């Protein structure tokens, strides 16, 4: 008997998923620039040269120099290392924790779900940014504490997504079949439900990545995230804000970087959403 081969090629190849292509290409470019930062620029991101302070953009200094004579372009590129790390860790920890918790809540239901649901409600009741700032202020400034705060605040979002998916999927007949076959609960949860529940969480993770980069920059701006002389976009804007009117280039560079990264990651998220819809027909 011949198999009915599915003739549909993957959506991203056939339909020209330009969101995903542009997003991935842009992200790859930014990532490579961050990794190979010392080869991208000839300057040292923390080398002070007061005689060169506040120079306008030129061929020598593509984005000009700041009040301490540091090359702004160099600092923007090196800052990508910190900001991408904030995005990645700020997404990965909540994604993992939130997914596992949501899986248990949705699968077991009953009192397990009730307890987890109440905790989620409490965390969601707080304004996001206020809670992050409060936690970092309490633990003390620094990137590690920023990661802790981001995790404490945003795991609940993934829990809600995965819980809802799990509740819908556990009534599917392939999950019943897995139970009927005598598979253990963990196997059913992680092998049979999780791979089918994870897609919306991954799509959300992309917008969360952009949000985390912005929150990281915001907290550094307030002096609660990265500490000087580290190059970090929010911190760069904070350090230069008094010169903003006289020398706008000192804030345009890092500001543009935040916008571009957010845009690129949002494009990936959009493209991923299209791709997932295509996979499930």
């Amino acid at each position, binding site marked *: *008997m011949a*198999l009915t081969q*599915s003739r549909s090629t993957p959506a991203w190849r056939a339909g020209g998923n330009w969101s995903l292509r542009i997003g991935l290409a842009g992200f790859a470019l930014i990532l490579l620039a961050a990794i190979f930062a010392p080869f991208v620029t000839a300057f040292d991101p923390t080398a002070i040269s007061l005689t060169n302070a506040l120079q306008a953009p030129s061929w020598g200094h593509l984005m000009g120099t700041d009040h301490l004579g540091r090359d702004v372009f160099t600092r923007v590129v090196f800052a990508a290392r910190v900001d991408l790390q904030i995005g990645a860790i700020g997404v990965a920890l909540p994604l993992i924790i939130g997914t596992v918790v949501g899986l248990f809540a949705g699968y077991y239901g009953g009192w397990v779900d009730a307890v987890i649901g109440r905790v989620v409600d409490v965390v969601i009741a707080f304004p996001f940014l206020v809670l992050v700032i409060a936690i970092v202020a309490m633990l003390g400034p620094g990137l590690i504490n920023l990661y802790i705060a981001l995790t404490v605040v945003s795991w609940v979002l993934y829990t809600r997504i995965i819980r809802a998916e799990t509740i819908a999927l556990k009534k599917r*007949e392939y999950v*019943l079949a897995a*139970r*009927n*076959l*005598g598979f253990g609960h963990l196997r059913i949860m992680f092998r049979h439900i999780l791979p089918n529940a994870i897609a919306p969480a991954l799509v959300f993770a992309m917008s969360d990545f952009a949000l985390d980069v912005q929150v990281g920059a915001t907290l550094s701006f307030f002096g609660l995230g990265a500490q000087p002389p580290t190059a970090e976009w929010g911190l760069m804007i904070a350090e230069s804000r008094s010169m903003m009117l006289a020398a706008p280039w000192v804030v345009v560079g890092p500001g543009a970087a935040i916008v571009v990264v957010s845009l690129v990651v949002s494009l990936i998220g959009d493209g991923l959403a299209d791709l997932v819809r295509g996979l*499930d027909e």
Partner: protein
Amino acid sequence: MSEPILRVEGISKTYAPRGLFKGAGLRPALASASFELSKGEILGVVGESGSGKTTLARCVALLERPDAGRIVFKGEELTALSEGVLRKRRRGIQTVFQDPYASLNPRQKIGDVLGEVMLVHGLATREALRDRVAALLDQVGLPATAADAYPKAFSGGQRQRICIARALAAQPDILIADEPVSSLDVSVQAQVINLILDLRDRLGLSVIFIGHDLQLIDFIAPRVLVMLNGEIVETIPADGSIADARHEYTRALMQAVPKLETITG
């Protein structure tokens, strides 16, 4: 006949209502159902939708715990076992579900679907797995190359064959077929039914075949249970015929089937 492989004694199931009006107009989905199944027997179960056929199937497979009654499988009372012990016994009673499109994990290749069952229960070694998977696929009339494809490459009838292969991978004694052909094209229904009958002959499986088409069930199964509102209202014995059915509902079911002569006049 020898000791039955399955004895179901008075099982009942009432679904707990949710929400505001708890306990308002509760009707059991299954009321005190009892029957026996011998080795190699095909038992038919027929009834309209909502008659408790699927609840019966899920309770016998212990996918739902009955509220009352006993299920004795190969001399062991399954209803008395803890969830942990029961898990090891589950492979003995397998189910083929109604909707083949929802019955396979879309992210698992067919080879992994079948292989997982045998690995979990230690029924095959990793080295022998590919051959065992190919043998199972062959048994249900699919080529060995199907192992490398995902479910979405297959039609409904092919998927139902894969579901049957998955059930066989567990080396069960009893196969519950819960309306296995209701969602298939008429042209492939016969193929799947014949496959199930053929497997019964070759492997000595006991089969509980559930459906809503009395004539079809009567054709497949010598002994038929007729269900209505969660109760078994009539058992048509192996040596009997639906023409001798006594219960008015069974007679109504028979008359619901249009006959060729009455249409052509």
